[in-house]
């Protein structure tokens, strides 16, 4: 019965109720929508970071991280790979690569690049290069057919931006220069076989791909690889999977690292971002709270006579307190529901096409983001935003409610 009385009281002054509800709706909407927007940016940065040959979990020789040189490699990856495969969760994929710093050169230009020796068929679903090339041909698998082997063995894939920078085209030669295991400078000519496009221009300038066979031949590393990169279905699992792998496999001489450790910058960014969300929620809430207190105070004061009468009739103070709290509870909950609905439907609408901000593309690339943003809703954020608003909202309504409950019947009935 208290509920239905509170509900009716709420609509004694519909305009006032609607106005404060709008404040709550806008508040919650802005909390959820803007958070989803920012989360979209962060998720995108994580995905860019992980797809840029990082992977969710990476396995490499223990000293490789501090000294990414060829001599710190996994000598015999075969048995290791099959053991890792046994312990991976369903849906996970992995790829082994050789990776070394090199200089790419043609007649007119030279630039530092990262040379990656890959197994093309393993990369599918693991890194961006697995998605194939935008023009030209993909590196063919290491199966060496007679005649075709030459063409494939000296093929190289480069990024579109690098191709433009070097003023060259598919079919032209590119010379790669690097150090082999004996610390001797080796250089070899490759023929540009295909061109890939990545989300970020810096990626396109940084990576060039050859087959692992060609890398093996050029660098003299035998079966060795620099890294084994694992892609999971859910980025969040990386930490646990890395731990499980380390426990299951005797990790002597190798390190198994999740992306959070591989990309500390991104982790720091997410930290700043979480702090900002908390701050933003509080600021919006405080702005809302002034309105909630004021409106509830008004609603209480114009009914003081009524509260006095109820008390004179024998109503307990806590029941008056409760009925006022239920009234603001209604406002908060209805506002929250509508605010959520509005935010989620907007996120859904924008999410289908993405928010295209290519006008700012250079700036986004500067910060490691892509220019089309897909807002992402995290359940945790939604729950958090609603809890903050409803819980703290009830807390601040307690002040006017307590004033109503404390009123003395005699005074109140004199009140006009």
């Amino acid at each position, binding site marked *: 019965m208290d509920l239905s009385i509170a509900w009716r009281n709420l609509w004694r002054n519909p305009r006032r109720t609607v106005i404060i509800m709008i404040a709550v709706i806008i*508040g919650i909407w802005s909390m959820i929508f803007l958070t989803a927007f920012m989360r979209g940016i962060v998720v995108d940065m994580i995905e860019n970071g992980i797809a840029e040959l990082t992977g969710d979990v990476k396995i490499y020789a223990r000293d490789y991280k501090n000294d990414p040189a060829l001599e710190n490699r996994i000598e015999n990856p075969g048995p290791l790979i099959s053991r890792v495969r046994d312990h991976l969760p369903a849906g996970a994929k992995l790829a082994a690569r050789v990776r070394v710093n090199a200089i790419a050169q043609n007649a007119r230009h030279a630039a530092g690049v990262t040379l990656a020796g890959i197994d093309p068929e393993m990369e599918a679903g693991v890194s961006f290069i697995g998605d194939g090339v935008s023009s030209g041909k993909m590196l063919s698998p290491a199966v060496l057919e007679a005649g075709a082997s030459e063409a494939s063995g000296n093929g190289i894939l480069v990024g579109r931006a690098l191709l433009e920078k070097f003023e060259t085209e598919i079919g032209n030669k590119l010379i790669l220069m690097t150090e082999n295991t004996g610390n001797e400078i080796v250089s070899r000519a490759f023929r540009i076989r295909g061109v890939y496009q990545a989300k970020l221009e810096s990626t396109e300038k940084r990576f060039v791909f050859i087959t692992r066979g060609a890398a093996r031949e050029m660098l003299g590393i035998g079966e060795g690889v620099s890294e084994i990169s694992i892609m999971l279905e859910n980025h969040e699992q990386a930490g646990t999977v890395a731990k499980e792998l380390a426990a299951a496999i005797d990790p002597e001489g190798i390190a198994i690292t999740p992306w959070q450790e591989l990309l500390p910058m991104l982790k*720091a960014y997410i930290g700043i971002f979480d702090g900002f969300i908390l701050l933003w929620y509080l600021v919006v809430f405080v702005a809302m709270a002034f309105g909630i207190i*004021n409106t509830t*105070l*008004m609603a209480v004061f114009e009914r003081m006579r009524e509260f006095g009468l109820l008390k004179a009739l024998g109503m307990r103070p806590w029941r008056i307190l409760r009925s006022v709290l239920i009234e603001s509870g209604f406002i908060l909950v209805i506002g929250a529901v509508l605010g959520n609905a509005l935010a989620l439907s907007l996120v859904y609408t924008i999410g289908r096409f993405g928010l295209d901000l290519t006008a700012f593309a250079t700036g986004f690339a500067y910060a490691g983001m892509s220019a089309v943003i897909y807002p992402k809703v995290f359940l945790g954020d939604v729950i958090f935003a609603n809890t903050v608003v409803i819980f703290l909202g009830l807390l601040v309504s307690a002040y006017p409610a307590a004033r109503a409950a404390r009123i003395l019947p005699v005074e109140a009935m004199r009140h006009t």
Partner: protein
Amino acid sequence: MATSQMIPRDMIPMDMKMAWRNVWRNPRRTWLTISAIAFACTILIFMLSFQFGSYGTMINASVQINTGHLQIQAKDYFEDRAMRRVVPDPHRVIKTVGGIESVAAVTARAKAFSLISSGNRTYGAMVIGIDPENEARVSTLDSLVREGEFLAGTAAGENRSGENRALIGRLMAENLQAGLGDELVLLGQGRDGSVAATILKVGGIYESGMDEFDRRTLHMPLDTFQEVYSMRGAVHEIVVRVSSLDRVAGVKTAAAEKLEHIPGGGDLAVLDWDQLMPGLTQAIKIDLTIGIIFWFLLVLVVAFSILNTFLMAVLERTREFGVMMAIGTGPGRLVKLMLYESGAMTAVGIALGIFTGCIFTAIFQVYGIDFSGASEILSQYGISGRIHPRLSLVTAFAGPLLVFGVTFAVSLYPALKIKKLKPVEAMAHV
């Protein structure tokens, strides 16, 4: 309307007085409303100052470490960093540009991509030839040297102890496993396509906090660079430092004009920091745009929070307004009265907000905000450790102005409701 013409001019202050008294009929409500407005202003002033402060730090850091305010380069060098696109006669250009007002310092640089090897490691990097004396006036490179010392001046052409020294970044030193005094072998391509090779000793190690810079650059004396890379006296960039950021545009125009008049000047281009680092300005614009959306929504929430106060001020006084109208007060004057009332509350709130906002911001401006926990990411943007918000006229008044605009728009709704009142009905209202 006849009534409004009947009001003598000296009555107008009375309206204000009346409005002011009405505002304080319910002090608690008024204070809550004022606090909401003041709160919004304080937050806006602080956050905007914070944003602008971090942009200033970002721009200055990047400009000082890297590009300088202005650069004069061969046309097309910026798009295509080829060795052959040079400024052939740097002395003349430096002399010309150095004479322009507000130019603080000028230096020349030459750049070549090369292979750098220590005993057991080889990496590719950008080798930059600098004029140590002038470089120190243009950039902060000399103060970034953490180990060893900055390159000595080679003005007299003498090379102390007869060997060439180089400065390298901390990350490059780690990658190369090289320390002070170790020898590095440079291998690259000269301006004419010939092989350029030399041996340098590590004379200093610098740390800028920008990973890319610390990993991929090596600095050596310009004269040695010109010899090794057969530059024949040419350089790639003339870097200009201007006395302050807002003078850059003027200097740019003046420099472009003067260059027209020197031989070969037509092949040169003047670029400002905005063109040299297009990503930076855009990143700032994105951040600012996102910021403005956030602040606008905040103001909207505040506006709806206080709309009820304004509305109640009208609704609970319906009877009173009916009486006033019955004794001859025009509805226009009542609307004005209402706007005075909401205006008074807004004005007090904004004044209070500007006051607390400025004090709050000024405190942090002096002490800075410590972001050491997040320094890794900030260093990517060239911000180190502490951020100082920067209070300016814009940051102090832009936010409050937004609050004022939105609040005024909101207060129109209840005020205009008065116009619909009919004296008899209004007086019957309880």
